[in-house]
């Protein structure tokens, strides 16, 4: 997958993972692992950007005697997901046009 495209997708995937329920770093990676490859060093800047943008808020809590940072999505984060869905709808319409075998020859010719 194109690196820039993946970068954009990852942010929304992280937001979606947090939208379901308040989450933390390890859980986010575990939730996303079946769908998209994401490493710890990739996740950190994403979470930082989202926090700076106000898309998520954080709180620290003690878990088994150690500190854990929890992330919760905000209205800004939800709005970003909605915008992404709208973009994907548009993308799907365009890709349907490109992939339509009845328009301009067979798929094999592409």
């Amino acid at each position, binding site marked *: 997958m194109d690196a820039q495209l993946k970068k954009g997708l990852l942010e929304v995937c992280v937001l979606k993972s947090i939208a379901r329920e308040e989450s933390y770093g390890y859980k986010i990676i575990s939730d996303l692992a079946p769908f998209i490859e994401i490493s710890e*060093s990739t996740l*950190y800047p994403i979470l930082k950007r989202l926090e700076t943008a106000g898309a998520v808020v954080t709180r620290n809590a003690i878990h088994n005697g150690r500190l854990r940072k929890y992330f919760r999505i905000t209205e800004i984060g939800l709005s970003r997901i909605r915008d992404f869905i709208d973009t994907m709808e548009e993308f799907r319409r365009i890709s349907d046009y490109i992939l339509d075998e009845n328009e301009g020859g067979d798929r094999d010719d592409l």
Partner: protein
Amino acid sequence: MTYKEWEAQLEERLRGARRNDISGILNYYREMYGDKHEAGLSDEEIIAEFGTPVECAERIKQDSPEIMPGVSDRWRKVFSWAMKIALAVFIIIPMLGTLLTGIATLAACILGGVAVALGGVGVVIYSVVMLFMGSAINTVLILFGLGMAMAGGGAMICIGFFFMTRYAIISVQKIANYYIEEKKRGRI
């Protein structure tokens, strides 16, 4: 390699970043390490999943350039500060000096007006004294008139320059307040 050694190497690779950012990154990895350890992974497995400290640091720097300002960013900041100092020294300070000199001049004119008015009052009093001392009425009247003119003129100068100075100070204050407000709103 133990996790502590791995973390120490990561911290070394992050040198140059802000202290807060380094703490944030280390706390993040500590948390990840704790969760993976809880899930049953060994130190070696966890470190293998993290990647080498060099790889981690490079990936973080790549995706968050603000964490690790490059050499060019540092020079940009140095240049920005040099410009601010030059602006202050060659433009702002002379402008402030000119402004203060102008206000001081206006204030001096007020004092001049006061001096003229007081002088006029003095001449009026002198003319009255001359009258009682039997001086020629013409002389007394001339002196009296001169004194009154000086007093009136001085008062007018005083009042005129007082209001000019007041408006000058208020204008400077309004400009300064406007600049501060716009700076707070991020428009400047």
